[in-house]
């Protein structure tokens, strides 16, 4: 099967190798077409966002206003902080120029003259790799003022890397924009949507790194070709990151609609010790988990997973074998969302903490089955009542894990051994910093 985003070509990260393999020809092709024709091709390709919500990319671009009275922006989202997701870093490392080329084409199509690639701060190494690729592209004239000559057009754009500083919430698109603007990364209330009112109040489009890396292939090989790969309603290849209890964890680029069991057993080499699977989270830790006995026939694309009761998310597949302590896993997931809640909305700020506390109580042997219902009730009260989708991201795993593994949890709760209380809660974000140090 052909790979689109991570082709197996040695040293493809080097600009000369990328050019030898047809690099930057898609940009050349795109920059002489009408903007709307580019958007149209992406629409017809059926490409859907790879950042979590699987939103139609061409449709998103078409929301950008046509008039040029305000500057427009593109944000490429490489915050990649959802537990279980580690695919964008492969693009930074192995195919950075395809991301740059996709960024150029996207900027042209939506009329943006500036793009920010937002990369999580922990990815120092990958930020440096990406910066090196960007410097090379600037030097060769593929980006910046020199583009006009290189591509013989009157369009040019600038691409900058913005380094995050350790906040999962900055992957949420409006929080990401606040972070670029130099503010605390609080999500914004929507509407207004970014296409109307984004960076510094201007029209802005936000797309995931993998989404953008698909664009050059769509332009070069055509939307018909792209739309025929994998599942028609969610076409293309997807970077599936497999982690946890498998023999060969890693990122596998496969057509959408590949069977989940195929990915786990064939590509990722199955479960160590041939153990049974207790649970699989198919799309990063915020997505509803599937039971080991629910996996047969489940295909990995947005529609199929929705039908199976979960969601494609970021394509991060977390596998847990039969000996996993699911209660501790769920508590760890809850701790994460508690830690990462920005604190703006009461249901999320308080609810994530409550869920974590209840789960700790269960772990310490002090809980009861009534706590299981309490967990679901807290989760239900977060869902739909918050500014951003971190609320759902925190509520779903708790609600669906407890519901789908009710038997497991009841047995676990009723046969408690007293375990030491889980790790201390730490939240740097809430650390009081003595103001008196500063304002005298």
């Amino acid at each position: 099967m052909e790979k689109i985003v991570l082709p197996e070509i040695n040293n493809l990260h080097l600009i000369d190798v990328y050019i030898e393999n047809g690099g930057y020809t898609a940009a050349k092709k795109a920059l002489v077409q009408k903007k709307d024709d580019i958007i149209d091709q992406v629409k017809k390709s059926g490409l859907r966002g790879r950042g979590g919500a699987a939103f139609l990319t061409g449709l998103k671009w078409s929301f950008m206003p046509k008039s040029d009275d305000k500057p427009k922006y593109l944000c490429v989202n490489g915050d990649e902080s959802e537990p279980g997701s580690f695919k964008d870093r492969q693009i930074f490392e192995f195919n950075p120029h395809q991301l740059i080329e996709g960024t150029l084409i996207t900027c042209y199509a939506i009329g943006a003259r500036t793009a920010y690639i937002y990369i999580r701060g922990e990815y120092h190494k990958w930020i440096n790799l990406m910066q090196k690729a960007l410097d090379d592209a600037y030097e060769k004239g593929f980006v910046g003022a020199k583009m006009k000559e290189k591509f013989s057009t009157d369009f040019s754009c600038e691409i900058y890397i913005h380094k995050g500083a350790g906040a999962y919430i900055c992957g949420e698109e409006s929080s990401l924009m606040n972070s670029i603007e130099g503010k605390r990364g609080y999500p914004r209330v929507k509407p207004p949507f970014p296409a109307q009112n984004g960076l510094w109040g201007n029209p802005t489009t936000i797309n995931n790194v993998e989404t953008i890396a698909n664009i050059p292939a769509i332009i070069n090989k055509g939307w018909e070709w792209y739309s025929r790969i994998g599942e028609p309603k969610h076409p293309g290849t997807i970077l599936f990151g497999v982690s946890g209890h498998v023999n060969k964890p890693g990122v596998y680029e496969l057509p959408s609609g590949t069977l989940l069991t195929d990915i786990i057993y064939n590509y990722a080499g199955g479960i160590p010790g041939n153990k049974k699977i207790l649970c699989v989270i198919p799309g990063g830790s915020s997505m509803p988990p599937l039971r080991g006995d629910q996996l047969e026939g489940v295909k990995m694309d947005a529609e199929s997973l929705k039908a199976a009761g979960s969601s494609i998310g970021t394509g991060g597949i977390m596998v847990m074998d039969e000996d996993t302590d699911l209660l501790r896993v769920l508590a760890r997931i809850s701790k994460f969302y508690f830690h990462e809640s920005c604190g703006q909305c009461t249901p999320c700020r308080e609810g994530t903490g409550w869920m974590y506390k209840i789960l700790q109580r269960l772990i310490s042997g002090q809980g009861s089955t009534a706590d299981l219902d309490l967990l679901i009730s807290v989760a239900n009260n977060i869902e739909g009542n918050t500014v951003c989708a971190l609320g759902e991201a925190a509520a779903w795993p708790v609600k669906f894990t407890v519901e789908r593994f009710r038997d497991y949890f009841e047995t676990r709760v009723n046969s408690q051994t007293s375990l030491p209380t889980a790790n201390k809660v730490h939240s740097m974000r809430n650390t009081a910093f003595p103001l008196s140090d500063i304002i005298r």
Partner: protein
Amino acid sequence: MKFEFTAVNLEKIERILPKYPDKKAAVMPVLYIAQEQNGWISGEAVVAVAALLEMRPEEVLGVVTFYTMYHKKPAGKYHIQVCTNVSCMLRGGYDIFNQVRAKLGLENGEVTDDGRFSLEEVECMGSCGTAPMIAVNEDYYENLTEEQVDKILESLQRS
């Protein structure tokens, strides 16, 4: 202690400013430069950054406290970060965390008396496919066994 940007760093900052249409947007990269120079973000550093970017110190402080990667107190020369999130947890992340704790005699968030080591339990670092992992300052060490962790720590202790 007074904080002043070095001439070299002021130049670096000059090169960052044109990336954004608004000075204030440079606050995150400028804070990184302050941290690199000073080891952590002190109150004086906050004041200096604010003056440079025409912001109020409270605004800069708000940014510092929102993001976990700005140190609000001095970190060790070797800042050891251990991921214990699910994918690492499933492959021994907590064992590694406890091993580092015991070996350095540190609890989460603490710094050794000689200022050489600090320990932080961190959230998912994007190493799920190469778990378990630790990061020492900016560098990732992945696919670890307990023996490898021992070796890494010992080589740091000797250096």
